[in-house]
């Protein structure tokens, strides 16, 4: 029944240890910090992208409105999609470096240290 298919690396912790870690406060906190960031942000950028696509698809007049020179609303909206992508990337990296990595490293140290 148990896993013969998987051979994780050298100091493989046993099944019970994974379950214990999963239930530990540190792990629950790590999971919470990850999900609290990635789920809302994913929802946000997908909605923002969808709004852009729908405008480009169904609101031609609005998107073709000139703002200055030959630059129209559509082009600005499109370029803002680039900006938002770059901004989210930067924010996520900052969040991960500050809030996720230290906790993940601590847990990893505890798990891998145990078996040796």
């Amino acid at each position, binding site marked *: 029944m*148990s*896993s*013969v*298919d*998987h*051979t*994780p*690396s050298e100091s*493989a*912790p046993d*099944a*019970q240890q*994974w*379950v214990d*870690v*999963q239930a530990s406060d540190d*792990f629950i906190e*790590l*999971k919470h910090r*990850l999900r609290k*960031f*990635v789920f809302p*942000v*994913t929802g946000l*950028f*997908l909605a923002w*992208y969808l709004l*852009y*696509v*729908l405008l*480009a*698809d*169904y609101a*031609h007049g609005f*998107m*073709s409105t000139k703002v*200055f*020179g*030959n*630059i*129209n609303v*559509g*082009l600005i909206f*499109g370029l803002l*999609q*680039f900006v938002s*992508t*770059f901004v*989210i*990337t930067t924010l*996520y*990296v900052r969040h*991960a470096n500050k809030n996720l*990595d230290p906790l*993940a490293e601590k*847990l*990893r140290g505890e*798990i*891998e240290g145990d078996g040796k």
Partner: protein
Amino acid sequence: MNESSPILNISIFGVFVLITLFVVIRASRNTKTAADYLAAGRAFTGPQNGIAIAGDYLSAASFLGIAGAIALNGYDGFLYSIGFLVAWLIALLLVAELLRNTGKYTMGDVLSFRMRQRPVRAAAATSTMAVSFFYLLAQMAGAGGLVALLLGITGAGGQALVIAVVGALMIAYVLIGGMKGTTWVQIIKAVLLIAGAGIMTVWVLGKYGFNLSSLLGAAVDAAPKAGEKLLGPGLQYGKTGTSKLDFLSLALALVLGTAGLPHILMRFYTVPTAKEARRSVVWAIWLIGIFYLFTLVLGYGAGALVGPDKINAAPGKANSAAPLLALELGGPILLGLIAAVAFATILAVVAGLTITASASFAHDIYANIIKKGKEEDKDSEVKVARLTAIVIGLVSIGGGIIANGQNIAFLVALAFAVAASANLPTILYSLFWKRFNTSGALWSIYGGLVVTITLIILSPAVSGSPTSMFKNADFALFPLSNPGIVSIPVAFLLGYVGTILSKDKADPTKQAEMEVRSLTGAGAEKATAH
């Protein structure tokens, strides 16, 4: 004006081939184990892998295709590139790091982690090979059109020969260099491509006093037929209600497909840690984003400086916009360089796809299903991977020659739609939904695959319209060329329903192991030391 010199183009491409072959041979000296061959020893740095990802992702379709689409259809071409870019956020936030922490070589490693191994691996390998094959065929067939344009070879026999040469070179790269060699080819190609596009962008902008508005104005002036419409959306997709819906469907497949493309996923295994996987995506996002900004300028630049009539009259039509712009700006030498980069692009992308498909066959099917895991990481796994690469190479040469000249644009759409429908739901469910189980995975993968392919076969891309693959038959029951708007929700739903209805319970210990490993990196595959 038309001073394109095929001999010059071939020579520059020849130099590229010699340099990359040299690099590949050098890189292969340390390739011994399966981890070396299939995952480059997991020893690339984040930035290196990020550049290679950009190399894998920026195919000829995105360089020649998007620039051409902007030149002829204006804003609607630009829309493509935005979907292609935003899609990377899904890879960054939801997939890359967790996948790196839980898998070894293939997408199947992650999908089957806490499921029944054999059925889920078989399903994952099927969809990996389907996506890779559609993508591969599109690239190889595209090579034919490019040859006509750049080398002046218009005969079917001559084009077939060039497709065969491209295929043979690709097989050589993959056999000799494995993942490490292929990665270096991607890196060299990405640097050349982005630098080349960057130089042309500055050049074009310089002609208009670095004023984007004047460039846009010039593009409008050069296109009396489209006129002002070039600057707003709607020229390509805005004609009817159906075409608008088709565009919405395409937009969904683009944004959800990228994080399910197996050749992109496999790249995350070439770095030592999840943190490096994150850095690679960050590098890829910046490079790809900047590159698509270049194509915006190049597309309108080609429209302004070359003009739509001349682009439409050229052998490759829209695909010739960027090369013709190079000729206009820098004469035959710049054209030769850009032509060589375009060729290198096809070569590098097909090599990346081939190694992905062969890794999936060797690792998921041979080592884990046929040999039940006993051959994993043995020499025989590498041997099978190499043999599979030869078979895939030969099949894609044959397929490329047959598909040459066909309207194959839908193949890329198909690859993205299958990736978004068959792969992404299962990846996300396995990583984030505790209850997800084997039947859910199988329903979602096979269901997504079958629905997507059926809808494409029944679409106007295949039959019933003047631009179809089969012009004289009409079995186009589904009105859209892009199935994503139906197939993606259906696949997510199937994964849910399959899980709920099944009597199988998810294995809670395996789920605990997967979740802890994916978030902490404990027990993740390490880099091999050389």
